[in-house]
């Protein structure tokens, strides 16, 4: 049995996508975040990406932890099931959900406190398992919801609104993700939607563990001078290695990788990641080189953004589990229960 999506009735002039949905069909409840919060821009980018990709909203599962960032799944894709779980544990909940039904699209939204402080372990282990998901950290360097304490991604020397200076080494989630074997790694900035939307689109179409670190200033607690996560600071230090376009549908125009400007990476599902290179020595399909480049630029104080690494032929957890094609949550009694006759044989073997 299948039910066709029924787009809500909107203003007739709103543009629609291939499924007949308008952008509004991808919206959610009204945000209760602070006006100007970077997180709201990321929600908008997610909405745009899903619209562009012609995704059926109800085929997305939105998961999050706890924090201002983790509230956002309520503010986009209102027709999707969402799960605002507990602090720092989105990755395990998402992993379980993914195991249960391999057919949905999994979108994990988290904060820097949620993923780099309390949730660092789950962040790491979900990536190394290759869970097929788009994992976005809305990174503002502070705990927004609890009013402005430093998080573990705060840079050493960054100044809090109240004046204290952060003394601990920061955790660079992108560096971690690369080390941990994530197969799609990007960094965006909530202030640059043009860059962010395709990053998200590429991640959603990626068939493995896709991670996006999205710097997302907190206007309430971390947008002052001295902060390294303010709009101004990020704008000044942002160094994009490439610009991405995600091309769907027809056969890709495979551009050779010359000294020129464009490079096409074809993902497993046929989607094409078209990269316009901004740094000529950057190859986003070479993990070790990417790590090295990022370490160096970080040491030089740059915030490198763009599609930083992609493995166009990723594996995923279902592959390593070797699960059946049908989602596990659709298997019925016949497929699951061995029955009385088999049990009699088990009993016989136990005498």
């Amino acid at each position, binding site marked *: *049995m299948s039910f066709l*999506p029924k787009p809500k009735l909107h203003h007739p002039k709103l543009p629609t996508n291939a499924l007949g949905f308008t952008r509004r069909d991808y919206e959610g409840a009204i945000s209760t975040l602070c006006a100007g919060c970077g997180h709201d821009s990321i929600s908008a980018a997610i909405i745009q990406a899903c619209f562009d990709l012609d995704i059926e909203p*109800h085929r997305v599962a939105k998961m999050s932890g706890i924090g201002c960032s983790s509230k956002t799944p309520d503010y986009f894709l209102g027709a999707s099931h969402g799960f605002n779980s507990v602090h720092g544990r989105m990755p*395990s909940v998402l992993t379980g959900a993914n195991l*249960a039904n391999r057919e949905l699209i999994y979108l994990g939204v988290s904060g820097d406190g949620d993923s780099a402080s309390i949730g660092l372990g789950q962040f*790491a282990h979900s990536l190394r398992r290759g869970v097929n998901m788009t994992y976005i950290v809305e990174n503002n360097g502070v705990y927004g919801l609890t009013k402005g304490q430093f998080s573990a991604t705060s840079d050493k020397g960054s100044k809090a609104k109240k004046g204290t200076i952060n003394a601990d080494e920061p955790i660079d989630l992108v560096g971690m993700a690369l080390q941990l074997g994530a197969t799609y790694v990007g960094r965006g900035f909530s202030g640059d939607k043009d860059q962010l939307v395709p990053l998200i689109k590429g991640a959603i179409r990626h068939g493995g563990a896709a991670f996006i670190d999205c710097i997302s200033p907190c206007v309430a607690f971390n947008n002052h001078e001295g902060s390294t996560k303010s709009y101004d600071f990020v704008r000044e230090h942002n160094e994009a290695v490439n610009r991405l376009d995600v091309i769907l549908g027809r056969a890709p125009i495979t551009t050779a990788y010359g000294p020129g400007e464009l490079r096409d990476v074809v993902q497993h599902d046929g989607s094409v990641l078209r990269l316009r290179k901004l740094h000529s020595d950057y190859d986003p399909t070479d993990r070790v080189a990417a790590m090295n480049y990022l370490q160096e630029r970080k040491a030089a104080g740059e915030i490198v953004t763009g599609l930083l690494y992609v493995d166009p032929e990723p594996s995923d957890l279902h592959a390593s589990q070797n699960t059946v094609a049908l989602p596990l949550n659709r298997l019925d009694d016949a497929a699951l229960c061995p029955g009385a006759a088999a049990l009699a044989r088990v009993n016989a073997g136990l005498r």
Partner: protein
Amino acid sequence: MVGTHAAADKRDERLRRQFANVNGSGSASANQLFAKSILRMGIPIASRNIFPSNIQGLPTWFEVRVSGEGHLGRRGGVDLMVAMNPQTWDRDVAEIDPGGYLFYDSTKPLPQSKFRADINVIGVPLTQMCNAAYTDSRQRQLFKNIIYVGALSALLQIEPKVIETLLTEQFKGKERLAKSNQDAFHMGRDWALANLECPIGLRLAPSDKVGDRIYVDGNSAAGLGAVYGGATVCAWYPITPSTSLAEGFERYCKRFRTEPETGRKRYAIVQAEDELASIGMVIGASWNGARAFTATSGPGISLMQEFVGLSYFAEIPSVIFDVQRAGPSTGMPTRTQQSDVLAAAYASHGDTKHLVLFPEDPRECFEMGAQAFDLADRFQQPVFVLLDLDIGMNDWLCEPFAWDDSRRMDRGKVMTAEELEAGQVFGRYLDADGDGVPYRTYPGTHPSKGAFFTRGTSRDRFAKYTEQGAAYVDNMQRLLRKFETAKAHVPRPVERPAAQPARAGVLYYGSSSAAMTEALAALEAEGVHLDALRIRAFPFHDDVLDFIARHDKVFVVEQNRDAQLRTLLMTEGGIDAARLVPILHYDGTPITARFIHAAIADKAPVLNVVPMRKAAP
């Protein structure tokens, strides 16, 4: 503990033997051989491994209970000690009941002071025999175990044929190994027949009391139960004594859940990075409509508390097998207890109440292992299945597993796309049926209807966030209503009325069952009559409260220090503390019939029952 109790015990034989070998070496399989051979003679046995929390080199015991009546619990005391470990000699010798037997390796002479006058000593020069027969040191070690099984078979009148068959079965395809084991067995047996007075006072006679019962450990049984219950996702983190439950699930899944055409799996098992992740995965999978579980032990239960609260409040099914070990903290990881009862029933901060099942043996581990998933789906909340190390890791003789092929998974109240399409009102936390149980939808069900946002915060009946006191209270009261509804759905208690009308009763649960049955028989033989009720689940079925109401005093037998189930009875049943007399065993060893017997007899005065003096033996 008190001494041996006469007549009934005369027909009992109980063997306890020690070995200093490495876990997993030949001795363990010799132990199994010994135990199984008795079983194959149709004599019920109960066997228990007692092992340390390390990998190599520390003492290990294997205890076999043989009882003419077919009692399967621990009795207490030892009739025949096979003392193979010099490290624990003194302790082992001390444990033998007066008149009992000590079997040892007499290769090296021991001073008289190392023995006791009131026991029978049987020496067999095992090492000497091995050294004479084998040159390879590994062989010497290996076959020593089979040799003493041979000697014991002569001493106890175990049929050699049975052992030969077992060895043949065990070494099927490795005929040479089978042969050399047979030889070693006969070497021991022949030596004993030639040099010792065989049989001794404890002897085994073929019987038909085993029937069609099976011999299996509770963890495997629970894992199999999860297969039959339709679990497809298992997320776990290794911890003694629960590890073999996940392993059992995997073993049976490999056998029964591999898609024949593709070799692909109809299940997923993730060894998570810790217990927080395990339960998180279970909740994620259940939320998404798969049946999912984790298996753990005490420390894991502590770590899962936050997520259990989410499962309760957001109403997401989760099944948690807790194979209890001795706490608190790391406690005694290889010892047994029933001490996570409160940690399970009221897990997590805030007001919570969870479903808890108490299987008595592997058969119930199987049964409840399957049923737990129906209950979790129906009531959309955590269901704990409380095994313990004793049930979980020891092989128990129990009724065969049973399954009715007409049985179907009860997925609970799940609203389908068709129902949504037909316009049924969907409120995720709406008590549409008045039983406290709301409807849910699986993610991805319908393009425009039935989606909702799941959260651990308070929300209204339509899953919208709210901080309104009235909506919060409304929801919390519905959760109580749901819990009330569950009472009639969880396994009912099992009553065993006394032979004569009794004013006192006894409540017990889980692995205490076998020892309890034996203790009740012994008490009855002394004229102490008690009605007995075995509790199988929390919340308590009305029968439990009725039972208590019908008696002046009720003993509550538990394997923990703080009488945790008694706390639940008082709190949930509103029962007067004075009427519930705790009987507590918590030293980490499985409770014994003797302990229960003595503890109750001790308190007999409170019953106003004068135990009849037993006749002289």
